[in-house]
């Protein structure tokens, strides 16, 4: 797959169809993959990679590095295309300046799961089919891929691309998932238990803004939390409620726009399950206003800028929900 992508990228560069390529680049470690812009065939030959560690959602990176005066090729995994479609709906990217190639994804590996298993001194990780081989200073170990797959991939919502100019590989389908199981578990707890759970999680927040920076729905020109005029801007998590406020408002601002790509939780250095906030909103929206998947098609009307006269009343919450 990686070689097909490289070949196609070089073709498009050579033909002048595009002048830049956005893809993934390998760094010091195999599992340390970052998004990158490639402008030459040499750079592609040297650094371009597509493997089971290419988790980063390139849509946000594309937004940050977009150029209007030239065409950029961007490779998008199925779940990245949802984010891209949502950005196009919100006029946040110039679709005409992009050449999108949809590529398949078979689930990404979470290195933290391998590290959590006690693996240290990791030299390289190779993944072939269902086997994941880890070579360390102290020896090798083979995992079954599903055991070290990222949580978000275990609950994959779709192998289908919602936006592209061409596809490489087979087009998949929208999938039935049990991604709301954790939300349901939390909903089943008592309020006291939930409060303890979230206080435990959110109090670890260091307000590094990694979630916000990675989130493809957080593309504001200026974030309300950075704008002293907004009245809610805060510098640090000095108190119990500051981080609650940040995360509630962030979740609210992306409610109905979040495609559930899971980048927020992936990048959180404190391993706070932030996606459970967004999934709660998605689950509520589905339950109260009908099934809705952000980023499914361009021009969708997000549920929070929409209504029906028959919508449920807010006291549905006090009455115990859906």
């Amino acid at each position, binding site marked *: 797959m990686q070689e097909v992508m490289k070949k196609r990228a070089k073709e498009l560069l050579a033909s002048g169809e595009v002048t830049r390529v956005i893809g993934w680049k390998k760094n010091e470690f195999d599992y340390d993959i970052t998004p990158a812009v490639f402008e030459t065939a040499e750079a592609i030959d040297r650094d371009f990679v597509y493997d089971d560690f290419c988790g980063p959602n390139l849509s946000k990176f594309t937004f940050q590095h977009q150029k209007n005066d030239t065409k950029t090729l961007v490779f998008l995994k199925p779940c990245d295309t949802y984010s891209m479609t949502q950005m196009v709906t919100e006029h946040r990217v110039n679709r005409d300046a992009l050449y999108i190639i949809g590529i398949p994804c078979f689930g990404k590996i979470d290195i933290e799961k391998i590290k959590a298993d006690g693996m240290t001194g990791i030299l390289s990780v190779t993944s072939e089919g269902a086997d994941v081989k880890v070579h360390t200073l102290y020896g090798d170990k083979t995992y079954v891929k599903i055991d070290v797959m990222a949580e978000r991939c275990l609950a994959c919502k779709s192998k289908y691309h919602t936006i592209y100019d061409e596809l490489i590989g087979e087009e998949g389908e929208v999938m039935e998932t049990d991604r709301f199981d954790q939300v349901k578990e*939390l*909903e089943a707890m008592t*309020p*006291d*238990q*939930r*409060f*303890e*759970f*979230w*206080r435990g999680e959110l109090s670890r927040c260091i307000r590094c803004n990694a979630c916000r920076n990675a989130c493809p729905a957080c593309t504001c020109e200026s974030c*309300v939390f950075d704008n002293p005029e907004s*009245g*809610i801007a805060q510098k640090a998590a*000095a*108190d*119990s*409620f*500051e981080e*609650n*406020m940040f995360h*509630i*408002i962030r*979740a*609210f601002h992306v*409610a109905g726009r979040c495609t559930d790509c899971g980048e927020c939780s992936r990048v959180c250095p404190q391993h706070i399950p932030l996606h459970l*906030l967004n999934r*709660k*909103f998605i689950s*509520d*929206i589905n339950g*109260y*206003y009908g099934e809705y998947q952000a980023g499914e098609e361009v021009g969708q009307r997000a*549920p*929070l*800028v*929409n*209504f*029906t*006269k028959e*919508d*449920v*009343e*807010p*006291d*549905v*919450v*006090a009455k115990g*929900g859906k």
Partner: protein
Amino acid sequence: MSMNEFKPKIVAFCCNWCSYAGADLAGTNRLNYPADVKIIRVPCSCRVNPMFILRAFQRGADGVILCGCHPGDCHYTTGNYYARRRMTMLFSMLDYLGIEKERTRVEWVSAAEGAKFAAVMNDFVKTVTELGENKRLEDLRCKK
């Protein structure tokens, strides 16, 4: 502080056209409700940003209630429909975080419903008083 002495802080957002007028009517008819309720006038329930409600809790409010025109009667035709969705989502999230769901409420009160306004406020204050002080959502730093 014993429960008997506890006086909750209640912020009530009222839309200018229906609920604020309903509150005025409650006054005109001398219908009593606790002084703990302080009203903020907004043009429409759809003007109320969830940030305002979180801010109130952060600053030590014990309950926040939003009152607007009945759905279908909005002065701006559709404002309260949006407010209804936003508040449903916000309340659900607060509940999900373990914050007592009785501390937030939405009520539709028309300009003619002075008695309803007073009844709603009496009931809300009673509920919040029974819950006691809002500890979960208060930012201690702001309580000088």
